[in-house]
């Protein structure tokens, strides 16, 4: 069994609003699948369907080959999850909150100490949950998701509220779990940089539709590169370049831009042309689209302006 998380044409409506439509995806064993989308794109709805919290209007979801349905509780033994902001019983301590999950999952008593140590919650173990900072509440949420050493992790915005050191720590932890222990991670986020660093594959969801799936390694190839040129007189430069068959368009700040792959690979051609034409460049740069711009271009916002 290589495909651990599978969805087939998941569709869910809330009255006349389509939350998700025809979402089909699969996540392979040991993969970290980044589920990327703006707020309200349908990430949490998809995750709640995967966890059996809501039923799709049509389509199916499978975890470890088993169909997600109300009475199939055995499938949650090896699944850990965190949905949206993690809340805990406010009057219970960190340890007591973990005790609840330990009891529910029939785990050994040591599991609480182990996870407290792993997520560096020792100083807060006896603090009641309502007095935890946002970052530590998030750690407690992650501790509840990881306490049983799951094979599958479904995490909705897990780094919300964590400081940069905490984000780094959790990223390292998840990457280690996936790479060294074969844990399959499905992680949703709207923080593009975070997903790019963590995920091995990214699915982009927009307005309830999965609009693209891409391997993170291939992402660089998909990001557009453009040549930017500035001169003292951009009008003359643009006309000079056009006469030689190179079409440039001015950006909002007057810089000339071209997506022509030939020019992107050989900017020296443009430099020679402008120097010989008496309009030498004051700036010549190849700019690569970052993930944020790529994402905005893919979902059709701002036309992917760099």
């Amino acid at each position, binding site marked *: 069994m290589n495909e651990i998380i599978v969805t087939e044409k998941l569709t869910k409506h809330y009255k006349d609003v389509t939350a998700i439509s025809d979402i089909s995806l699969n996540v392979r064993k040991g993969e970290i699948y980044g589920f990327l989308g703006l707020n309200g794109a349908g990430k949490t709805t998809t995750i*709640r369907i995967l*966890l059996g919290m809501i039923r799709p209007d049509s389509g199916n979801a499978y975890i470890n080959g088993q169909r997600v349905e109300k009475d199939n509780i055995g499938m949650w033994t090896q699944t850990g999850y965190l949905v949206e902001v993690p809340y805990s*019983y406010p009057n219970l301590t960190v340890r007591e909150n973990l005790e*609840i*999950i330990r*009891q529910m999952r*029939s785990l050994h008593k040591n599991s609480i100490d182990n996870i407290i140590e792993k997520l560096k919650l020792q100083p807060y173990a006896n603090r009641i949950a309502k007095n935890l900072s946002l970052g530590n509440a998030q750690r407690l949420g992650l501790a509840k998701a990881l306490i049983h050493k799951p094979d599958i992790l479904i995490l909705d915005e897990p780094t919300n509220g964590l400081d940069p050191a905490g984000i780094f720590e959790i990223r390292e932890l998840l990457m280690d779990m996936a790479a060294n222990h074969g844990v399959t991670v499905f992680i949703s986020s709207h923080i593009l940089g975070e997903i790019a660093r963590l995920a091995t594959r990214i699915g982009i969801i927009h307005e309830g539709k999965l609009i693209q799936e891409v391997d993170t390694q291939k992402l660089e190839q998909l990001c557009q590169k453009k040549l930017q040129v500035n001169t003292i007189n951009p009008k003359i430069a643009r006309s000079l370049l056009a006469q030689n068959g190179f079409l440039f368009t001015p950006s909002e700040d007057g810089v000339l831009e071209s997506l022509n792959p030939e020019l992107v690979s050989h900017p020296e051609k443009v430099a020679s042309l402008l120097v010989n034409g008496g309009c030498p460049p004051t700036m010549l740069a190849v700019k690569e689209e970052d993930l944020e711009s790529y994402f905005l271009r893919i979902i059709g916002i701002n036309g992917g302006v760099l």
Partner: protein
Amino acid sequence: MKNLKATLICEFLKLKRSGIFWITVTLFIFIPMMFGLMLYISQNPDLMAKLGLIGTKAKLFGENDWNGYFGILNQSIATIGLIGFGFVTSWIFGSEYTNRTMKDLLALPVSRTNIVIAKFIVAIVWCLLLVLVFIVVAVFAGRTVGISGWNTEHISRLIYRFFAIAFMTMLLCTPVGFFASYGRGIIAPLGFVIVTLILAQFMGISGLGPYFPWAIPGVYSVTGTVPGMVLTTASYFILIITSIAGFAGTALWWRLADHH
């Protein structure tokens, strides 16, 4: 069964740490103490005259004997119980929504029905404890103010009747559990409790009390043969069916509804 035990342990841990538990215990100590005080006032005509409105209320205790006293206690548990037990059930189910911890219970290797059963067991144990506190304090207060005619055998019969009314009231917790789940919080079930309490009074007055579930414990608490105030076999069936429907509705809601 193992799952149910684990779920019960969790529910009792939540209860142990909640301030609400001790607030309800305090209230159920305070109320019978007030009854004892009223009884004391009713036994002292001079004091009753001096206390105005309180003195007038104290007259409601009527005969200064254990029968009269238990008459008041029985009617009280039928109404105070409806509110108190309703509040307990609202809190047990509704706080999972107000604390936003509900989602932590939905994808676990424990059936949701077991969680619902555990919650109702905790509700019943909590309510029983309140009833016990109520009756112990009430009897102690009655003995302290010196109600005449103590007879252990007779008092046992009165206590048995009191517990029967309390138990009938407890059976009406289950629909509250449903409204707490359906309403995703504490406000909707408390609203439901208030509406049923008002309707129970209205149905009692209109003679339909024996057929309206929330009026049945109150009707049972009134001894006598007044027409429209006598329970029939159908009354007990209605009460049990309401309780089963409330439990089934709650369990089905947890199992089948979309949990956002």
